[in-house]
């Protein structure tokens, strides 16, 4: 389990990044990142890649003009402000009265199993699905009336790739720039920079179809950055990718985040949520069941460590554990089909108690508590079945 250590703030404004020192500084951090992550050649190459290209002059000026009225109303400068937000499809309630705010520069996550209402929420934020009830403001505007204006400032990475398979890799970026009305010269320059950023420069003239799943995802992310969005929405960005492709994608998203982009993502992977999210809400069954930073959620809802015990077949692990007097050492035990989980502040001490009581599990593992445990605690179910 690798957690992302906190980073010194990296300047993110266009002016600052234009400054050579700041740019070099950002690169140095990227290199340090890669060295620390050290997950194989592809990631090491990632450390070498450029950081996110600085914002285009067009985008900067457009932002200062349009952005003046950006987060004016609806929740203390929040980029997204939702109260009692509800989405129904006929009799089915996909999202049931949820409240949340997303602040500028934040990486905000919706964690929950499939069918929890994450995608419906993202589609409402993305202004392609009108809300049924409640309040929703995105970038200070009302999606019901200003959908096109809001979408002009969003980058949306959908759950299923919808790249244009009849165009080349580079054309995918250029045509998207046209949809956003990015001037041609800016679009061409930015496409080149973004292909570098997502490490697809050598595939620029290729067709989309032969690309691997990870490459397609990276191209989708580059596409969403072409118009320099204020807010990037990612719906299950790494679902279906192999571990190496996931790590490379996380690394790129982490770069984005460090450079000040506001990210909103959904995931049913607790490690993804822990790696990328400053703050998240746990969704289950159309509701938000908890909210906070990954660390706070773990502190609030579960113990620091988890002792996982597996027993030989035929041994009633639960009964065996129940005979041990842990005192206040074990806060809670959780029975799973294949193992018993002991939530404790001190895993070593709990193992010692077990052993001195003569309980001999087939294997025991002490690990840090994760968001998976939080979800289990809150809903009685696991995230990925």
């Amino acid at each position, binding site marked *: 389990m690798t957690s992302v250590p906190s980073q010194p703030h990296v300047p993110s404004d266009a002016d600052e990044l234009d400054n050579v020192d700041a740019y070099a500084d950002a690169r140095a951090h990227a290199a340090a990142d890669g060295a620390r992550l050290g997950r194989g050649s592809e990631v090491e190459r990632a450390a070498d890649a450029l950081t996110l290209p600085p914002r285009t002059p067009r985008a900067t000026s457009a932002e200062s003009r349009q952005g003046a009225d950006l987060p004016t109303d609806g929740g203390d400068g929040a980029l997204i402000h939702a109260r009692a937000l509800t989405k129904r499809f006929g009799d089915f309630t996909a999202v049931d009265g949820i409240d949340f705010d997303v602040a500028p520069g934040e990486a905000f996550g919706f964690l929950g199993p499939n069918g929890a209402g994450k995608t419906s929420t993202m589609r409402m934020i993305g202004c*392609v699905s009108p809300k049924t009830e409640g309040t929703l403001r995105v970038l200070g505007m009302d999606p019901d009336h200003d*959908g*096109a204006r809001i*979408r*002009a400032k969003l980058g949306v990475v959908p759950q299923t790739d*919808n790249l*244009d398979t009849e165009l*080349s890799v580079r054309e995918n970026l250029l045509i998207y720039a046209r949809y956003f009305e990015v001037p*041609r010269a800016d679009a061409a320059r930015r496409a080149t920079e973004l292909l570098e950023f997502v490490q697809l420069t050598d595939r*620029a003239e290729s067709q989309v179809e032969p690309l691997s799943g990870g490459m397609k995802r990276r191209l989708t992310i580059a596409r969403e950055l072409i118009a320099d969005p204020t807010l990037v929405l990612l719906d299950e960005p790494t679902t279906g990718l192999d571990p190496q492709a996931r790590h490379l994608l996380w690394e790129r998203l982490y770069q984005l985040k460090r450079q000040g982009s506001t990210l909103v993502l959904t995931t049913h992977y607790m490690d993804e949520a822990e790696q990328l999210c400053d703050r998240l809400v746990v969704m289950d069954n159309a509701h938000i069941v908890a909210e906070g930073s990954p660390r706070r959620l773990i502190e609030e809802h579960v113990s620091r460590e988890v002792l996982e015990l597996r027993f030989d077949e035929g041994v009633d692990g639960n009964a065996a554990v129940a005979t041990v007097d842990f005192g206040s050492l074990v806060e809670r035990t959780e029975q799973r089909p294949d193992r018993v989980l002991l939530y404790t502040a001190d895993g070593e001490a709990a193992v010692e108690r077990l052993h001195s009581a003569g309980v001999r599990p087939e294997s025991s593992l002490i690990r840090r508590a994760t968001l998976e445990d939080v979800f289990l605690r809150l809903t009685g179910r696991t995230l990925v079945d």
Partner: protein
Amino acid sequence: MAVASRPIDGRPAGGPGESAGGPRLLGPGLRVLQRHLWVYRRTWRGSIFSSFLNPVLFMIAMGFGVGSLIGPGSGGAAGAVIPAGLTYLAFIAPGLMAGAAMQTATFESSFPISARILWRRNYEAMLATPLRAWDVLVGEFGWIGFRLLTTTSAFLIVMTLFGVPRGPTALLAIPAAMLTGFAFSPFLIFVASRITGDPGSVFSTIFRFVIMPFYLFSGIFFPIERLPQALQLLAWATPLYNGVALTRDLTLALAEPLTSMAHVGVLLLYAGIGLALARRGLTARLVT
């Protein structure tokens, strides 16, 4: 990479939200048209070739082949097949042009639209940008208009090579045939917007039981006066009959203002109803 297209304008994103009004009525939709033209850059050769080949083959087979059995119209006499003074080739060629426009428009409005909704997911990608469902529709009609323009222009060129046109109004046969296509296109797009299952069976049913009968009984191959009275009335109400008659009258310098305006009115009525349906259907499909 060289981008062959020119920027249409440099306006930044913005303007009214979901309503399609004012200066944003057509502008954003041109981006969708541009996308189709980028794809067309790769495929235009084959498409241009078949645009010419199709009318040439039809005119040789039907005009000369079948026409040699029929002979020129003698007019008036009972049993006359075609109007006086016309060769069979001259009679059917403009009708074939209107029929080709219908076929081009219905094809482009069927499977490709379904594919962009269901499999290629182009529209989903477009609607994540400032583009609206209306803009997608504008772009598609722009593209279909482009396809109709190339198809009907090729047809008119071939007809000219065969000596069919009888006056300068023949140039108006191009917009007349294009309008014929647009009287069909939005209905097919509406159907495409409603399909959740297999579009193949839906469209092949429509082509077999709607488009093909239209093609055969709308006065392309023989005057509808040869049909029983009831079927004649039915034919008058169809968009293809009006398109065929209008295209033929313009090509052969037979057009009378009032009749022509009536044909145009019928075609516009169909196009307008279809457009309203297509807009509702596509919006309901894409914005849920």
